[in-house]
């Protein structure tokens, strides 16, 4: 990448935000959740995707926050929005009607098909731990054309099968039998897309036509084998393109001086 001035020093969260921002194409209608997704969309709008539109599920459509929101219900989300509406509008008037190109989401556990669990640890009927629950994760993931998950890379979180499918990946369950089938088979003509990337503190993963996750790039300082060792499933590393592009000095400056100057998500 000739001509780019890459940052010498950055923190793992900085690279996560920058890598996520690079997933935004100019003009995308983006549905973002609380936390790093807020940094990613704000950074993208200030760099490569000035015409991207941000929707937060609590009701703000194309807000222009001048102070970073701390949650999607925050009044800061709605500052200079084109519409300040509610959940009926965001879930049905924006998502279900097909506007949403890209979604940024998180998860506690993920499997190789991109199924995500944010509900319980263990058997749902007698769980050992309860997480927050689905929130809008499965709704947004089931209907956005592309979904990018931002997660912490830990072996126990990258599983063969998640304990509970909160959010639908590429191979999901067809009820009432519960057999696993391709997402297209469940969604029929309602199908729009699905998980396109997973970004962690170690690597960027993508999904093949078979709906299975593979290693795309490793972050500087890590090897493909280390990433594979941090997955419980057998990760395909044969298609790894090399290193994830580092953040530039300009991107780090924007993140710390313009997007999150108060140190909310980037302490």
């Amino acid at each position, binding site marked *: 990448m000739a001509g780019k001035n890459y940052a010498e020093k950055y923190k793992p969260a900085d690279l996560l935000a920058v890598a996520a921002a690079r997933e935004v194409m100019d003009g995308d209608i983006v549905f973002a959740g*609380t*936390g790093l997704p807020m940094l990613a969309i704000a950074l993208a709008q200030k760099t490569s995707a000035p015409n991207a539109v941000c929707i937060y*599920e*609590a*009701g*703000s459509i194309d807000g222009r926050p001048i*102070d970073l929101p701390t*949650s*999607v*219900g*925050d*009044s800061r989300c*709605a*500052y200079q929005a084109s519409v*300040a*509406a*509610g*959940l*009926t509008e965001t*879930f*049905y008037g924006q*998502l*279900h009607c097909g506007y949403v190109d890209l979604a940024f989401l998180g998860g506690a556990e993920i499997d190789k098909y991109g199924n995500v669990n944010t*509900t*319980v640890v263990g058997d*749902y*009927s*007698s*769980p*050992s*731990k*309860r*997480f*927050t*629950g*689905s*929130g*809008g*994760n*499965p*709704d947004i993931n*089931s209907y956005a054309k592309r979904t990018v998950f931002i997660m912490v890379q830990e072996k126990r979180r990258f599983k063969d099968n998640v304990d509970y*499918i*909160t*959010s*639908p990946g590429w191979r*999901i*369950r067809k*009820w*009432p039998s519960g057999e696993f089938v391709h997402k297209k088979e*469940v*969604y*029929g*003509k*309602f199908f729009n897309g699905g998980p396109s990337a997973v970004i962690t503190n170690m690597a960027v993963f993508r999904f093949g036509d078979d709906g299975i996750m593979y290693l795309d790039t490793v972050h500087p300082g890590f090897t493909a084998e280390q990433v594979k060792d941090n997955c419980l499933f057998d990760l395909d590393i044969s298609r790894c393109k090399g290193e994830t592009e580092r953040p530039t000095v300009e991107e780090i400056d924007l993140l710390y001086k313009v997007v*999150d100057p*108060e*140190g*909310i998500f980037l*302490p």
Partner: protein
Amino acid sequence: MSKINQITLKEAAGLIKDGDMLSFSGFTIWRRPTAMIYEMIRQGKKNLHLFEVNGGTHSEILIGAGCVKIWESCWIGHELYGKLGESLARGQVDGSIIVEDYSHAQCVARQLAGAYGLPFFPTALSMGTDILNPKYDNLAKAGLRDGSNPKIPLKKYEMIHDPMYDKGELLLIPAVNPDWAIVYASQVGTEGTVRVFSQCYVDAEVIKAADKVIVIAEEIVPDSYLRDDPASNIAAGHAIDYVVQVPFGAHPTGSQFYYDCDAAFIRDFYSASKSSDSYKKWADEWIFGVSSHEEYLEKLGVNRLNALKANTVLGYSTNVKRGTR
């Protein structure tokens, strides 16, 4: 022209019976009727059935106090200020609370059907998930889908084939019509017209779906003022049964253009909520240690409330320290 039925917070909480089904206004840690939550706890309500499009600090407080038997929703936590709903998690793990999980948009579908007088609402969102796993229908497992409770639908959902455009299978999600909507609103007019500022969340649907509506109003204003800009209002007076005027009635959750979320207070509560012993200590101080909302505000102190006060142009506080810089 009809006037609002204005009552006190104690009278409002007195209307709620053990076992009633409730829903609330707001979104996670914004515009929650917390003053009413505290008063219901002081009055010792039991076996409440909550339907929430999403939960938050208010429901964690109510659940921690042992007031809730059934929780139907999709999410509970404190956003940035506490990552889990510890009280609910304890109740689900030890089996004392029946949890029925839907997705967020499915919860909205339930509320929409309820608001519009429909038995169900169709959606194609969140298909293929364990939310629809028949083995995980906890209300059915508890034997509560037998029709004996008119607030509990006979089925959690139904799959149908689109009979109109042949688009394939999709879901019918049952309506919800709770006994009560307890709604915190920014302004209520003297005839009951309701206005909220900024995002309206699901507040209008929550009002319409419930049998009876209690509004906890930050302020009561002349109805004529609200009628000068009718497009900004979310409900007409005939949908509202009772109004209580409670300044800072949403604290510690935020109310756009009045005050920000009290992050430190929510963080402290979240730490306390991690065990029932520490919850009890917290409740003894902040709920049972005061006899009224006025005493609660006095205990919070004027400096704390002043720091939370919203900038009247921006709609949020510019005085609270939110991050590390």
